[in-house]
């Protein structure tokens, strides 16, 4: 059945104030919610769209979080999962600012090295990763020197 003409397809619940994270790789939205701890957001509404059709990406996920502004550290974390994400800041139901995730050259104290034999898993020292490739995102651990995909780096 075709949707009624006045209904914008895939339009998820509009928020008055908060953040929309668009162009998340398909089926990674739950990971984004997890790293932002958006599931612990108290009374705020969190909506997510999974496997939505995208001209650019084929399929994509979208996350909207009410009453939430992203910090720089959170933007860095999102870069690991969704290096091409577009972030929109919403006020009074309108987009007031659009940002692209910028993948930094180094991730410091973000995430955990997936290698259980890495010194960061055995001693009190935070993980540091260097970007090897941006597309697809590949990171090298500063200590054990192993290379991982962005979403492998446990957060």
């Amino acid at each position, binding site marked *: 059945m075709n949707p009624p003409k006045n209904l914008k397809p895939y339009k998820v619940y509009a928020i008055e104030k908060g953040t929309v994270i668009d162009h998340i790789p398909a089926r990674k939205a739950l990971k984004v919610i997890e790293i932002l701890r958006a599931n612990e957001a108290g009374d705020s509404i969190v909506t997510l769209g999974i496997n939505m059709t995208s001209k650019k990406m084929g399929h994509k996920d979208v996350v909207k979080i009410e009453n939430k502004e992203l910090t720089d550290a959170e933007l860095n974390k999102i870069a690991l999962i969704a290096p091409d994400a577009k972030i929109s800041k919403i006020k009074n139901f309108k987009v007031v600012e659009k940002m692209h995730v910028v993948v930094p050259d180094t991730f410091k104290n973000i995430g955990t090295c997936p290698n259980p034999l890495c*010194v*960061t898993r*055995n*001693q009190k020292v935070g993980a540091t990763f260097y970007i090897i490739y941006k597309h697809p995102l590949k990171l090298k651990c500063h200590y*054990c*020197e192993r290379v991982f995909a962005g979403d492998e780096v446990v957060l």
Partner: protein
Amino acid sequence: MVTGGFKGRSIISIADFSREDIEYVLAIAKRLEGMKKKSGLLRDRIMATLFFEPSTRTRLSFESAMESLGGKVIGFADPNVSSYKKGESLYDTVRMVEQYCDVIVMRHFVEGAPRLAAESTTKPVLNAGDGANQHPSQTLLDLYTIQKTQGKLKGVKVAFVGDLKYGRTVHSLTIALSHFSPTFFFVSPPSLRIPSYYLEDLRQKKIPYKECEDVMEVMRQVDILYMTRIQQERFPDPADYEKVKNVYILKKEMLANAKVNMKILHPLPRVNEISTDVDTTPYAYYFQQAGNGIPIRQALLALVLGALK
């Protein structure tokens, strides 16, 4: 690392070395090998060996190198006697040991431990192997051996044979040789192929390579045949091991068509992957290769302690 700036530096990973750095260390090693009066170079200097994992050959080689330059050696070879067992952090161990010595040589089963150690102290730390990660003095002695036997490093054709998936020496030597326009042949069973990340890196650097399963396919072409041990415990099914184990044993008759300059290297210990009848052929060079560890380790110690420039 900047060449000439080795004094006080830690030697943690071959990936930190530029082409010039490598050439510089090899030149110093050559100089030391030909030097007659070197027994006073590191007089009154103390090297601490912290071996959290046993390794007789690497430890003896470092100790021999230090003593031959007039230095002294302290340390432990068995982590069971160290305070690590009592729960002391690596940071605390290093901060304590640095009070007693001028240079620290560390082997650790935890990957990245020597880098963390180097960040914890102002004394230079030499990585003598950290798990499956790095063993830079081994890589440098491999390069020194190739240069010595081939008269050059540039443009050599190297075949790596055996366990290329877990073989630390193979990965490090691939990275290091990439500075010198090599051609690589990776000879392994399908389950022990070199990780795709290394191949991606070679493609980016436009370095020619070929993967195959039979060493005889490349025997006529190679300058260096780098053998590694295939460990049975890498195979979940013992039947899979039985299938491949004999294919990767090098025997004398297989060398009939080898180039005259070809040399066989092996990081040792060997189990059965090079038949003992190969030892007496002019191609066998693995024992001399181990011997090259001395001038390389002498060079590293002399450089980081500022005794040579």
